[in-house]
C-alpha cells in the first residue's frame, strides 16, 4: 500500500455583484428594496463618518484614527446580517460595523479622542470593547459562543479581524476550540491586503486565508469583500449554520485598505500608488450604487439628498461628542475593579485632591 490520498479539500469564493453592479440573480439575497437602500445608506454613512474623523484628527480634535475607507462593504454587509441578540467582537477598524448596529457615532468619536467612556456599549447592543491587541479577541468570542450554547440562547458570536491577525497564536487557539466544541461563531476576516506595511503575501504563504479553516475542521470561504451583497450572503449563511448547531465559519473578505493604516501612518513609504488605483475601480460604494441604479432605485438627486442628510447627522454627532464634559481623574479608578483596595482608595483621594 503506497502513497494514498486520504483527504480532499476545496476553497470556494463567492461573488454576487460585478464591479459594474450587475448581479448574479441566482445568488441575490432575498432582501427588499428598502433593505437594499438601507445597505447603501449605511455604506455612505460609514464613509462620511470616516472622512469626518480624518478631518477632525487633522484639526487636533481627535486622536490617532484608523480609517475604514474601502472596507465599507465588508463591514456593513456582515453587520447587516446579524440579529439583535448576537455578540460582536470588533477589532479596531470597524466603524461600519458600529454604525450598522446602531452604536452612537458621538460615542465612537469620543473613544478616539482618548476617552474610555466612548466604549460604554448601550444596553441594547452586545459589542465588546474595541480590541487593540491584534488577534487576541477571537477567544472571547469563543467563550461567549460557548456560554450561549450552554444557555441554549440563539446567540452567535461574531468576531472581526484583519489579515495580519491570522498570524497570531490566539487566532489558532480560538478557531481550533471553535472546531472542537462546534461553537456558534463566525470569524469575519477583512483581508485588506496590508497589516500596516506588511503585505498579505508577507503575512502567510497560504494561497488564501480562507483555507486556514482547514486546520481547524471548520467551514472556510472567501468572498469578494467589496461586494456588500456577497458579504451579506456569506455572513447570513454562516450565521444560519451556526444557529442550527453546525458550528463555526471563517469568512475571508477580500478587500483593500484604501487609506493609510492610521492617521499616524504614511502608506506611500511602502506601497505602489498603482495598486491603490486598481482597487479604486472596485470601490464598494460605487458598485452598490450601480446596482441600485440598474434596479431603478437610485439617481443623482437621491444621492445628493442622502449625502446632505447624512452629513447633518454626522455634524450632530460631532457636536454631541465635543459637548461632552471631559472625564475626571477619578474615572481612572472607577472600573479597575468592582471594589477598590485600601491603597487604591488612598490613591484616588490623593489624585482627586491634586492636579495632574
Amino acid at each position: 500500500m503506497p502513497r494514498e490520498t486520504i483527504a480532499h479539500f476545496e476553497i470556494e469564493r463567492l461573488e454576487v455583484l460585478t464591479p459594474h453592479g450587475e448581479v448574479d440573480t441566482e445568488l441575490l439575497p432575498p432582501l427588499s428594496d428598502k433593505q437594499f437602500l438601507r445597505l447603501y445608506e449605511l455604506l455612505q454613512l460609514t464613509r462620511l463618518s470616516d472622512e469626518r474623523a480624518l478631518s477632525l484628527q487633522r484639526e487636533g480634535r481627535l486622536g490617532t484614527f484608523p480609517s475604514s475607507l474601502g472596507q465599507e462593504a465588508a463591514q456593513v454587509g456582515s453587520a447587516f446580517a446579524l440579529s439583535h441578540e448576537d455578540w460582536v467582537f470588533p477589532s479596531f477598524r470597524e466603524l461600519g460595523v458600529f454604525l450598522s448596529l446602531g452604536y452612537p457615532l458621538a460615542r465612537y468619536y469620543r473613544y478616539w479622542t482618548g476617552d474610555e467612556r466612548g466604549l460604554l456599549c448601550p444596553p441594547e447592543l452586545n459589542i465588546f470593547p474595541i480590541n487593540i491587541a491584534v488577534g487576541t479577541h477571537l477567544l472571547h468570542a469563543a467563550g461567549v459562543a460557548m456560554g450561549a450554547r450552554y444557555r441554549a440562547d440563539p446567540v452567535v458570536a461574531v468576531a472581526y479581524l484583519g489579515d495580519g491577525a491570522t498570524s497570531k497564536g490566539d487566532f489558532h487557539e480560538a478557531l481550533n476550540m471553535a472546531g472542537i466544541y462546534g461553537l456558534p461563531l463566525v470569524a469575519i476576516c477583512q483581508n485588506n491586503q496590508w497589516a500596516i506595511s506588511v503585505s498579505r503575501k508577507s503575512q502567510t504563504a497560504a494561497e488564501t486565508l480562507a483555507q486556514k479553516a482547514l486546520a481547524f475542521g471548520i467551514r472556510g470561504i472567501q468572498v469578494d469583500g467589496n461586494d456588500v451583497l456577497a458579504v451579506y450572503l456569506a455572513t447570513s449563511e454562516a450565521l444560519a449554520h451556526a444557529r442550527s448547531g453546525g458550528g463555526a465559519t471563517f469568512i475571508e473578505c477580500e478587500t483593500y485598505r484604501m487609506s493609510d493604516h492610521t492617521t499616524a501612518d504614511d502608506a506611500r513609504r511602502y506601497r505602489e500608488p498603482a495598486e491603490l488605483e486598481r482597487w479604486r475601480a472596485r470601490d464598494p460604494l460605487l458598485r452598490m450604487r450601480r446596482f441600485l441604479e440598474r434596479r431603478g432605485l437610485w439617481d443623482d438627486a437621491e444621492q445628493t439628498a442622502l449625502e446632505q442628510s447624512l452629513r447633518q447627522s454626522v455634524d450632530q454627532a460631532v457636536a454631541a461628542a465635543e459637548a461632552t464634559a471631559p472625564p475626571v481623574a477619578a474615572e481612572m479608578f472607577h472600573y479597575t475593579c468592582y471594589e477598590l483596595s485600601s491603597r487604591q482608595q488612598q490613591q484616588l483621594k490623593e489624585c482627586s485632591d491634586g492636579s495632574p
Partner: protein
Amino acid sequence: MAVLNLVQAINQGLQQALAEDERVLVFGEDVAANGGVFRVTEGLHAEFGDARVFDTPLAESGIVGLAIGLSAYGLRPVAEIQFLGFTYSAIEQIYTHAARIRARSRGRFSCPMVIRTPYGGGIKAPELHEESSEALFCHMPGIKVVVPSTPSTAKGLLLAAIQDPDPVIYLEPTRLYRLLKEEVAEEPYITPLGQARIAQAGDQLTIVAWGSMLERALRAARNYSAEVIDLLTLSPFDRETLLASVAKTGRLLIVHEAPKTGGLGAELAATVAEEGIMSLKAPILRVTGYDVVPPLPLLEDFNLPSEERIIKAIEELLRY
C-alpha cells in the same frame, strides 16, 4: 467535620460551587475523565457531565481567553492551568484582557472568573512544574491573587474567589496538597479575600509568608515570640494587618519561594519602609529563593527557603 487534605478541600469546594450555582463551569487540560493531574477535579465530571466539567485542547492562552468570554457572558468559569509555569503564554489574556475588560467597557462587561493552578516547589517535579512567579500577577491592577495555606483556607478562599466579581488567580501550593490535613467544615463557607490571618501571635518580630512557606515559617518560629502572618491574598494584600503587626513588633521578616529580586516580598518591605518605617528597630529581611533559574529536583532543596535559613534570619533580627 471531616479531616481533609488540601486536594480534598479544594475538590469539595469545587463540587459545592458546581452544585449550588449552575453558572459555574470547570475546565482545563485533563480535568474531566482524568480528574486533573493531581486529582483535584476527581469525580466532578462524573457528577456534573460534559457541559459543566470539560477538557480543553492544549492551549493555555485559549483556556484563559475562553474563560474571559464565558464570564463576560454571565457564567462563572473556573479554569485550570495545569501548572503555573504554563500560564506564561496566557499572560496577555490575563493582563491585557481579564484585568481590563471592566475598565475598557466602563463596567458594561466584567470577568468574574477564577484561574486555578498548582504552584511552588518541593515536589521533585520536572522543569516548569515548580514555578513561583506570583509577583508577576501582583503587578497587574484588576487581577486578584490568592494562595491558601491550609485545607480550610483552601476551601474558603476558593468559594470566595468564585463569588468575586473580578478575575482571581488561585494558586495551589503543590507541596501542601497531601502534606497538611485538618478538619474542614462540610457546608460551604467563605474566607474573605483581601484579609490576612494571624497564624501565630507574638510581639518580637513579624514574619510574613504564604502558601507552602507558611508551613515552614511556622516551624521556624515555634520557639520565638513571632507574629506569623499568613498573607492569603497576595493582591490586594492586607496592608492594615501588616502595618499593625510591624507597629507592634518593630521587626519584619518576609519568606517566599520566588527569586528575591522583584518578588512580592519587595512590595511588602517597601510598604513598611514607606508607611511604617518609624516603628522599625531593624532592617527588613527577606529569606527567598535565589535569583536563579529554578533548579531541577536534585538542587531544589538548596533554593527553597529552609527552616534553618529562616531561623538564621530571625536570630539576626533579634540581635537589633
